[in-house]
């Protein structure tokens, strides 16, 4: 494996993923990440010339008609953590 993963790398990634592990957890995660990716670097053996395959199936064009269907929104609104007059209420950003 090219480069060891540092605690700072994990901290940055945690922030991007909206997670805030404790210092202890960060240590553990850093160790895990290094061990796991070290093992997984086995895939470096695979020649670069192999074409990456993104989709499992080869068919294209799953298309549908432009038609409206109404869904009862109450079941969805009942999930909101906070709400106000049927708006969902998120923290302000200003």
């Amino acid at each position: 494996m090219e480069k060891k993963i540092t605690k700072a790398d994990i901290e940055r990634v945690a922030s991007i993923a909206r997670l805030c592990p404790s210092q202890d957890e960060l240590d553990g995660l850093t160790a895990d990440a290094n061990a796991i990716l070290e093992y997984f670097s086995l895939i470096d053996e695979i020649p670069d010339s192999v074409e990456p395959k993104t989709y499992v199936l080869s068919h294209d064009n799953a298309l549908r008609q432009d038609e409206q269907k109404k869904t009862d929104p109450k079941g969805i609104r009942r999930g909101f953590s906070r709400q106000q007059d049927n708006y969902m209420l998120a923290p302000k950003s200003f």
Partner: protein
Amino acid sequence: MELSKTLSTTDAIKSGRLTASANLENKIARVEKYDSAVKAFIETYFDDARAAAKQVDAKIAAGKPVGKLAGLVVAVKNVLAVKDKKLTCASKMLENYVAPYDAAVVEKLRAEDAVIIGSLNCDEFACGSDNTKSAFFPTVNPVSFLGNDGEMSNLAASDKYVPGGSSGASAAAVAAGFCDLALATDTGGSIRCPAAFCGVTGFKPTYGSVSRYGMADMAMSFEQIGPMAPDAYGCALMLSVISGKDYRDSTTSKTTAISAPAPDFGTTKNKIRIGIPKEYFEGANPAVAKAVQDAMGRFAAKSGCELIDISIPAVKFGIPAYYLLVYSEFASAMQKYDGLKYGAKPESNDELVPTVSKVRTANIGKECKRRIMLGTYITTKEHKDAWYTKALKARAYVRAQFDDALTKCEFIVGPTMPNLPWKIGEKAADPLQSYLEDVLTVPANLCGLPAGSVPCARIGKLPVGLQVIGRRGADYDTVCLMAQIEYSLSSC
């Protein structure tokens, strides 16, 4: 001798010898007696189930036509949405989340008059191979409680084995007789592993055969919903109900529904070639390897099929290719959990970013968080080529070798798991050790191939599963072969 428990039950109900209500009460009685030990259920729906069973009985009494699953009791892994019931995914993040809709497969269960008895435990968000990573409680493999009478008479047993995962409770529920059939999901072996560990039959369809609309995502390009049953017939019956195109899951756009088991199900007319890959046996526990080899030897002798030795060296890349891509897809799938729209509520009235971070950190479990972080890491600009893109190449590489192997034979057979079920807590420490247990199951998910597990032996009381992998789209034939193997093993 009963060749298929499922077939017997469904016959009895349709012919009126057994009412749906009586069938249900049998199951409920077993749940009430044994589930405090097994701990398979997250939530039971006894009232709803009784009402449904009554309706089925009324239809049958009135001579009205009933669905394919009429009166069969079905339990559902709690990553599948059941309208107005909790969809927890065994996570604190969704502990109290009530689904506002039915998964496509649940709609189909209802349409075919199944009786849905409740929701089943699993590893949190399907991340695990032994059902110990549920945020709520671990499910226990029913074999742990087997007494000498072959029944679960030893509820005080101290050695508690894992049921496998992530759909551990689904297999446990079938094994313990809590339901006739279970619906579970398989991303890297999550149906086949628990089927093997609990001594039941499970099947993962060809990718794209069954609509995933209503299945909480773990890794979208790998997973399928599939059946668990006492036998391959039950799997085939369920498959014919749940498979088919659904405009709400565009990966099903070119699929056709799998046929229901025909009268000659479990027999094959043509001479088949079965590939035996050496990599599937080399790394396995010798007792497990031997059990599967012996079973196939007996089957070949009886059926006249041809066993061909093959080698698929790419198997060794399976775990890295699988996990790297699963991390990436899982991290993406988990972005939606921010505590705003549904699920766990934020604790305080913070600013936006800390609010979201705190609720995610507090309510998503350790393994899931680990996967999210790794998935995020390997898809960042700096690391994407080295890991994500390389993993896509590895996936292509593994797929090419498996497709090539399946030109030399119609099916591949080997052990489902490299090891016997371990005890609860044994694999807690090292995530990598857990991952490596999936080595024999992940290839079918990497390649989108249909694959199932049938019980083939017991070592002590611990079950050994035999895995059958078929060509893409050959689901019916694969389950058919599984049935044949089952019949041949049971008549020994």
